């Protein structure tokens, strides 16, 4: 008890300093989230909406409906959305890391125009994501879009113009703009980390006769592990909770992006706010959150060593 008292006394200032942050997080994050968790146990739909928290309590039925009920209206679309989100998350994060690593590696060298190159490469990151959705949606159009014009009319890479905004290609149409917008951040973080690696390590590796790939695997990557870990964590969360680009590209958020374009977030927001299935919507969000927490647990296992190393 004495120890506690002393600790409090010693760190009085710290508690005062974090108080505003605690209040803000409680009010905007945790209390509404607690209500959200509770809603996931309620039969809250258009008929019971006015009762809100006093809607019938149905336990875990919402979860059962989404996961197992074959006749459920939500299950089918939700599973598509989960599949798309998995593909989307893996594809965007992997590509962003590879592109970022390559660019960081090139930008580390001295060459004429390096500053300009870096600035130009950072440009996509400052474009607001709703503009990204609108702009790329405009460029992906089948007959009048510039992408098909370049691919088919100018470069003759494809024999005829494919549809990007309908059908299975939609998943490509949402992955590429996401990569485009997220690689600059990854690049700049990796570049900064690369610059902290002393050249001595590379020279030593060269004396040992290491090839370029070996240097990457045995020298660069271990050094970058903490940064890569951070990037993966936030990249992962960002893609799983991605909403803006898809919402703006398809029907201004009101439409249905199709069974290959619907992400979990757009699916839940449509079910909650267009179909008034707030209970099942909340249950789906809770499962999504559990999924993210589980992934974070795995992430922590993998990157634990490199995090404590620092």
């Amino acid at each position: 008890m004495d120890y506690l008292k002393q600790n409090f006394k010693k760190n009085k200032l710290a508690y005062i300093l974090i108080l505003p942050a605690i209040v803000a997080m409680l009010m905007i994050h945790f209390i509404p989230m607690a209500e959200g968790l509770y809603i996931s146990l309620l039969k809250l739909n258009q008929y019971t909406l006015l009762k809100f928290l006093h809607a019938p309590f149905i336990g875990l039925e919402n979860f059962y409906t989404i996961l197992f009920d074959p006749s459920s209206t939500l299950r089918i679309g939700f599973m598509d959305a989960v599949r798309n989100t998995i593909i989307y998350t893996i594809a965007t994060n992997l590509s962003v890391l590879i592109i970022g690593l390559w660019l960081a590696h090139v930008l580390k060298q001295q060459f004429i125009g390096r500053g300009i190159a870096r600035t130009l490469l950072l440009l996509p990151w400052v474009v607001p994501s709703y503009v990204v959705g609108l702009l790329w949606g405009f460029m992906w159009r089948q007959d009048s879009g510039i992408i098909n014009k370049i691919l088919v009319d100018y470069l003759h890479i494809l024999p005829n113009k494919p549809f990007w905004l309908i059908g299975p290609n939609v998943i490509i149409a949402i992955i590429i703009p996401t990569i485009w917008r997220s690689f600059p951040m990854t690049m700049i973080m990796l570049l900064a980390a690369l610059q902290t690696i002393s050249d001595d390590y590379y020279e030593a590796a060269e004396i040992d006769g290491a090839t370029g790939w070996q240097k990457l695997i045995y020298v660069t990557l271990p050094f970058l592990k903490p940064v890569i870990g951070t990037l993966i964590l936030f990249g992962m969360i960002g893609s799983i909770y991605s909403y803006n680009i898809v919402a703006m590209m398809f029907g201004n958020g009101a439409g249905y992006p199709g069974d290959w374009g619907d992400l979990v977030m757009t699916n839940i927001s449509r079910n909650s706010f267009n179909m008034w299935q707030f209970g099942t919507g909340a249950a789906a969000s809770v499962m999504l959150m559990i999924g993210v927490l589980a992934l974070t647990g795995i992430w922590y296992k993998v990157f634990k060593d490199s995090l404590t190393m620092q």
Partner: protein
Amino acid sequence: MITDKVITQNVSKKYLNYRQKKKIKRYLSLTMLWIFIGITIFPLIWMVISSMSNQEGLLTGKIQPQLKNILINYHDMWTNINFGLYFKNSLIIDASTTIIALSIAVLAGYALARFKFIGSNLFGIATLGTQMIPGILFLLPLYLIFLQIQQTLGIKMVNTYHGIIITYSAFYIPFSIWILRGFFASIPLEIEEAARIDGCTQFSAFIRVILPLAIPGIIAAAIYIFLMAWDELLFAWVLTTSADVQTIPVGIRLFVGNYQNRYDLLMAASTVVTIPVALIFFLLQKYFISGMTAGAVKG
């Protein structure tokens, strides 16, 4: 003798080859880099070109940028819908959010970096934990809590500047704390101790000595907050009803919708909204990068 000569020749040949190879490799990778840069900035160039085209060209794909269209489109985008109002709202909301969230995050970030207090781990985990909550889970509850505040306390929250500012501030505080904590941790403790020997209290040492040193980190967090707030769509969409407080992402939809499809004005507006963030970012780029990476590299 002869063999010796052959060997040295071979070696020098090999050496040259190696140098040449390296040079070729370098040129190759630089060429690839510039091609990639070309592809990267093309969509933005296309956005600007489209904003100089007319409606018909954009519709049919026969895009011919004309200078006179610059005058027309960049003028009409403010009159076709009341875009200036959305722009003003975004600026007010985002600037206030940045100031409020930053002040709170600076305090908490410093506390986390310098104190080992009971609950500091819990606080750190809670901070990261907020990032894992899907916004859609607490969107409706938050909206209703706002309405309840209005009913019980008489403070209007929905459809007001301060309602959104409070929401956004809380959104971006956690990650800013995380950036700033890393930066504060990278400032040597000795500096602070020296200040305290000179007679400063811990708090005044923080204000007078540590804060000025932390400016790159603070700028990094500020840019992060501003960019995120500029980008937010879902909550702005639900928490506002009238154009008096709606932000750009809500307003910009009106260019392309049920009533009209003005891609020309949309592209002009997109260009205009990208410029302020680009300006802020590139003016402060240096600080941003050092601030962000201090947090990440130092863990």
